[in-house]
């Protein structure tokens, strides 16, 4: 059985912003997106001691190999990186196209995604990829198991849990509540270098450069602006009536 895990290399600085400078610090090297670590962990748990192959797949710059190596250090067997200048600046439409091509090439039985932070790129990518693969997708998996020829998922929604089954091949996006990713052992870190790591260009993947990158994207970022002012902030001193003042404030904002 083969499990493919889609992972992203995110600049370290994206998790660290000085609210004063508002600048993304990209001088660090970057790391495996922490939500993708949940997906890698889940794949490794499903693999257990079996012969199942766990492949990590990513699209990104050459530096992304570092994150792939971290997944290999955790225990994944093989890594595939699609790295091509023409793919830079891909939006969801373009990224899902490239990833789907890489995943089709792998022919995995199960494709896992992590629950990307909503202010990161690549969030909601799984549904787009599943659509291109023409396979069932289940997201927000808080628990996942393989039953027969399918997956059994406990899906977390705003209202509770739905229990969903889908036949393989399937795409599942795991929530960060599903597990606690393991620390790679020293042996794992040292062994990672020896595991197979492929780097593919778009051409090698059979994807037309015009379908990827900015050329293949349907959205653009136009610029940065200041957020709307928070509105006048008020500060009052308690003269015995603070509680009422708060209630009035909340009522006015229709929060009660």
């Amino acid at each position, binding site marked *: 059985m083969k499990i493919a895990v889609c992972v992203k290399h995110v600049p370290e600085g994206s998790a660290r*912003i000085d*609210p004063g400078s*508002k600048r993304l610090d990209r001088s660090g090297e970057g790391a495996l997106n922490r939500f993708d670590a949940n997906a890698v962990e889940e794949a490794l748990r499903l693999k257990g001691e079996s012969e199942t192959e766990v492949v990590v797949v990513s699209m990104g710059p050459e530096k992304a190999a570092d994150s792939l190596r971290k997944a290999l250090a955790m225990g994944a067997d093989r890594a595939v990186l699609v790295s091509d200048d023409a793919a830079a600046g891909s*939006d*969801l*439409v373009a990224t*899902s196209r490239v990833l789907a091509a890489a995943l089709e090439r792998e022919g995995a039985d199960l494709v896992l995604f992590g629950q990307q932070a909503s*202010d990161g790129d690549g*969030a*909601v990518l*799984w*549904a*787009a990829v*599943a*659509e*291109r693969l023409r396979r*069932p*997708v289940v997201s927000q998996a808080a628990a996942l198991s393989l039953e027969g020829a399918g997956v059994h998922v406990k*899906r977390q*929604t*705003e*209202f*509770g*849990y*739905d*229990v*969903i*089954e*889908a036949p393989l091949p*399937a795409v599942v996006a795991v929530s960060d509540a599903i597990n606690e990713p393991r620390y790679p052992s020293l042996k794992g870190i040292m062994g990672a270098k020896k595991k197979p790591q492929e780097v593919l260009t778009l051409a090698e993947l059979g994807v037309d450069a015009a379908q990827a990158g900015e050329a293949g*994207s*349907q*959205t*653009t*970022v*136009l*610029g*940065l*602006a200041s*957020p*709307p002012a*928070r509105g006048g*902030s*008020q*500060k*009052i*001193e*308690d003269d015995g009536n*603070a*509680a*009422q*003042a*708060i*209630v009035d404030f*909340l*009522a006015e*904002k*229709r*929060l*009660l």
Partner: protein
Amino acid sequence: MKTLVFVEHHGSELQKGSLGVLAKAASLDGDVAAVLVGGGVTALTAEAGSYGAATVHVADDDSLEPPLPQPRVDVLAKVVRDGGYDTVLFANSVLAADVASGLAARLDAGINWDLADLVVQDGALVGKRPALGDSVYADVGWKSEPRIALFRAGSFDAAPTGGDAPQVEAVALELEPYSTEAKVVGQELEESTGPSIEDADVIVAGGRGLGAPEGFALAEELARALGGAVGATRAVVDAGWYPYAAQIGQTGKTVSPKLYVALGISGAIQHKVGMQSSSTIVAINKDPNAPIFEFSDLGVVGDLHEIVPKLTELVNQQRNS
């Protein structure tokens, strides 16, 4: 502009978030339609109309009752193509996010998500997307049509228009084979032990100003009155006053509820980055120079041990009236 809004429902209730997006759509130029997908949803079409949809496309079938995204992608793709919609709007939810993304891939349509607003700038539709901990807004656009937008939950308020009954159009089901492979085999509805921190619309958080672990009783009662969850700062979690699962901040959880009430919290940056995108922040602290007052919407300088019990009582009264 011809805008289609995905209106979500749970049971027989239309979801407020998507009604808000419908109101937003109605405020833009052009035609506005809603699409409802589910089992027995025909009964909800009039209501959808009353919140701003001139037309409601309905796909009503028992097989569509489970909240699964892929059949909805099929329905919306057909409605968009047949109806020539150039803009499709969604309010974020677990279901809507998957539908919007699947639809984007189906139609090869640009999707901008996590938007807080949508405006027309220089004749083009521009989305406003908070970034970098909400400290900046990125202007995002679309290069082609249809344009798909997924808004942050609660971005807009619903606005009943009291207009005429909408035109209702039934959608013929044409589902892809892979769309029906996933099946819901069971459901567990959450008991009302209160929302989790991540999902809560209201969070009451306590810091060192609570004075002692017992101070959290005040926070819990207020949270109960407001229907919210309880959070805590790193300092009090370190001191063992409250569990780590409730820690909000740089090394804890990041939250963005509609209302964040900070009790006895100074507002150090490590805490701030975990809650600064809350829509409304009310802070109570006896130190007038506490940094939290620099980014709260209502700051109250006073003794929380006196204010909070009274506040809880007043809120309960309000709720019961």
